[in-house]
């Protein structure tokens, strides 16, 4: 019925259309919103998988929306890089949606329709940002995902409101910087299409306007991904967000922003400009080092489990940005692989966090007491995620770290290598501290010894996704080679 050539646009439009339907359905019966969202996200994932398979088989796909040829119309370009990211985004969103059922029922039973509509729209925004080949279209979708994100966070009430407000202010600055950067390129070239810009820009590489455009777009992406020292908004916004929200945005928001940075750098400016003309190469790597070290140290200082995780996100962003600016094959491969791995790892941790919040009504470290006895399966799955964050083989986290460190050695960026190792060690300390609390300290309600703690596992709708993701982490680790050879190696710009 619908030709395979149309699949790229389905990835985005199916969830978009479904979102409005979900909103209408919710007026009839709130209970239908959940299955409808799963259906929509599942369809999107299926389309993304089909497109990824086609990209792997035949190479880059171009899709002209409205049948207008670029640069006059808007074009979707799916190459090896975003085919992969699309699958990750759609997959993570689906898993997060599956797990959201009980949290949503607990947190805002009356706003389920609004929640799921915004949830699906946020995913749409992220998918659209990933798939597009047009610099301005990217901005519009960035705003969709941002606005949905603000409101999903603010739905948490109380402190989430304050976090959400700060996020709006800073997020708007970020988006505006990006838009301004696009404006600088537009005034100099007259085009908004990325491929067209890549053709037109080399003649203008010497101008300050292009330089400023690049810096503004980078700053915009960095604010959106919470790259040190622009990370101030993230911990508050994510810590106090409702669990169902943070499960979706924590794994995806920063990762998609990193993708956008990579996309803008290599598909608009080109590797030559980024690594040879831009005078910031060393600086960025050192900023990444600061992000990794700073994020890790702040994470150490937290007494709140979820907040600790948010600082880890800040550190992980440093991994990816640093990896890209190592400017070699290993580093960029590692950064892209880490987008995938970190999305899944963060998903695992936040799924766990969602379970903790659901079960204990809190996310401080003391809420974790005695969980090894109470929820052995949940804890086992969490342990896999934690080990992946530490970078223990054969979990996924180890392999991207492997590439990144190799890249650091190759580029003689010893500070970056040291920061990666430092962060692994800090993660080990952090997570074993968590394990200790969950393993050694009895839950509060149990007094005295010998009182057997009844096993009280998480509801299946939360447990199954978590276990699946934990297994996925190991599978992803074992298949990281094929991921690199099928997708990532083509995504690394040639000639570096």
């Amino acid at each position: 019925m619908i030709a395979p050539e149309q699949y790229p646009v389905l990835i985005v439009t199916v969830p978009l259309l479904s979102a409005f339907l979900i909103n209408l359905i919710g007026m009839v019966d709130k209970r239908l919103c959940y299955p409808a969202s799963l259906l929509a996200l599942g369809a999107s994932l299926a389309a993304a998988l089909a497109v990824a398979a086609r990209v792997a088989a035949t190479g880059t796909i171009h899709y002209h929306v409205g049948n207008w040829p670029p640069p006059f119309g808007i074009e979707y370009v799916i190459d090896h890089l975003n085919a992969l990211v699309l699958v990750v985004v759609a997959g993570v969103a689906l898993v997060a949606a599956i797990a959201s059922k009980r949290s949503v029922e607990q947190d805002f039973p009356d706003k389920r329709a609004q929640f799921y509509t915004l949830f699906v729209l946020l995913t749409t925004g992220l998918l659209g940002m990933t798939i597009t080949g047009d610099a301005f279209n990217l901005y519009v979708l960035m705003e969709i995902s941002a606005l949905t994100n603000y409101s999903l966070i603010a739905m948490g009430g109380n402190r989430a409101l304050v976090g959400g407000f700060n996020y709006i202010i800073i997020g708007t600055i970020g988006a505006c910087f990006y838009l301004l950067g696009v404006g600088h390129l537009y005034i100099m070239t007259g085009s908004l299409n990325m491929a067209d810009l890549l053709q037109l820009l080399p003649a203008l590489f010497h101008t300050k306007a292009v330089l400023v455009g690049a810096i503004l777009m980078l700053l915009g992406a960095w604010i959106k991904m919470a790259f040190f020292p622009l990370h101030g908004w993230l911990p508050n916004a994510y810590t106090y967000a409702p669990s169902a929200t943070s499960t979706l945005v924590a794994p995806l928001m920063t990762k998609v922003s990193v993708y956008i940075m990579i996309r803008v750098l290599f598909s608009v400016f080109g590797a030559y400009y980024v690594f040879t003309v831009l005078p910031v190469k060393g600086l960025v790597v050192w900023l990444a080092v600061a992000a990794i070290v700073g994020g890790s140290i702040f994470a150490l200082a937290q007494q709140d489990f979820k907040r600790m995780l948010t600082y880890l996100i800040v550190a992980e962003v440093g991994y990816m940005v640093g990896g890209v600016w190592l400017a070699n094959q290993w580093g960029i491969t590692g950064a892209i692989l880490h987008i995938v791995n970190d999305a899944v790892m963060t998903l695992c941790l936040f799924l766990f966090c969602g379970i903790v919040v659901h079960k204990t009504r809190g996310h401080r470290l003391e809420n974790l007491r005695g969980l090894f006895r109470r929820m052995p399966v949940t804890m086992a799955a969490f342990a896999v995620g934690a080990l992946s964050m530490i970078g223990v083989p054969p979990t996924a986290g180890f392999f991207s770290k492997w590439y990144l460190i190799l890249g650091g050695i190759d580029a003689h960026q010893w500070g970056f290598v040291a920061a990666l190792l430092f962060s692994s060690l800090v993660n080990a300390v952090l997570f074993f501290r968590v394990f200790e609390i969950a393993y050694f300290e009895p839950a509060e309600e149990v007094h005295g010894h010998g009182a057997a703690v009844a096993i009280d596992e998480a509801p299946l709708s939360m447990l199954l996704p978590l276990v699946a993701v934990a297994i996925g982490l190991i599978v992803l680790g074992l298949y990281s080679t094929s991921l690199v050879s099928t997708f990532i190696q083509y995504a690394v710009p040639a000639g570096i």
Partner: protein
Amino acid sequence: MIWQFDFIILALALICAVASISLKDLLSAAIVFGAYSFVMCLLWTEMGAVDVAFTEAAVGAGVSTVFFLAAVLHTSRQVKPRRHGRFFYKFIGAAAALAIGGVLLAASADFPTWGDPASPASIHVSPHYIINTIPDTAVPNVVTSVLADYRGFDTMFETSVIFVAGLAVLAILGRFGRRTRDEAPAEFAAVPVAGQSPIIQAACRIMVPFMQLFALYVLAHGHHSPGGGFQGGVILAASFILIAISYDLRAMIGRLRERWNMVFASLGVMIYAGTGALCLLLGANFLDYSVLHRILPATSPIMARSHGMLAVEVGVCFTVMAVMVLIYVNIASHGKSDKGL
């Protein structure tokens, strides 16, 4: 373009901007900010951006200001004097502003001269639209054809942004669960009709139908003159907001229920995305309206594009109208829909 005129407008804009952020009285600040938006409209009209100016007049100077006023009335009207000045933030703010300003200034040295007809932006992509809009789409207003067709995909998401805003305001402010199936809770019925001036009420009652008629004209005539879905939708919304302001919220909700509002908002975007999907089902690319000639009687592919654009503009109008009213209602009633402004 008369540069003296430009200068006056720009100077006014600067004054309004500085005033609106430095006034201690938030109500005044909001009103000055409305004036700022209006000055902006003048500036853009003067630069030939009539559609932008139109939208800004309706959105920026119109509903935004009303939103602001409503919000300020519900919160605190005064900026409180501080015990300790925010020196740190002031310093950061000033440093960031100066740094960005300096960088931008440096970049502007490389820009082509303002208004240069030979600048890259004027000769690369945009001439294509100007020259081909009539042969491609039979729509003389290039802004409309680019908005709804060449870059119609952007606009679809832009409409979604509006929808998101409405939904978000509802999700954040809305009180659910307390209300029964209908919007009218017990206390709602108890609120007496606010005693506004009868002159204003009478005037508004006369104005509203004309406003709505004008809105429809703006929507329908967007192909040929400045205007279109956005502007039409905002004017429609303004007519409802006017009722709310001159009478009270209850009077307006009586005419446009919140539930229907949400349906309209969803429906609008669905019309847009649905038109795109229809093209897809007919075997063309998403939003390739030309394929609609197969189902529209006696229509060439070119005219089909024109009709397709009209369809999506209607969708845009629905959503914008519904969402603007929704936002206003929720802000003005603090989510309770039971009080007037």
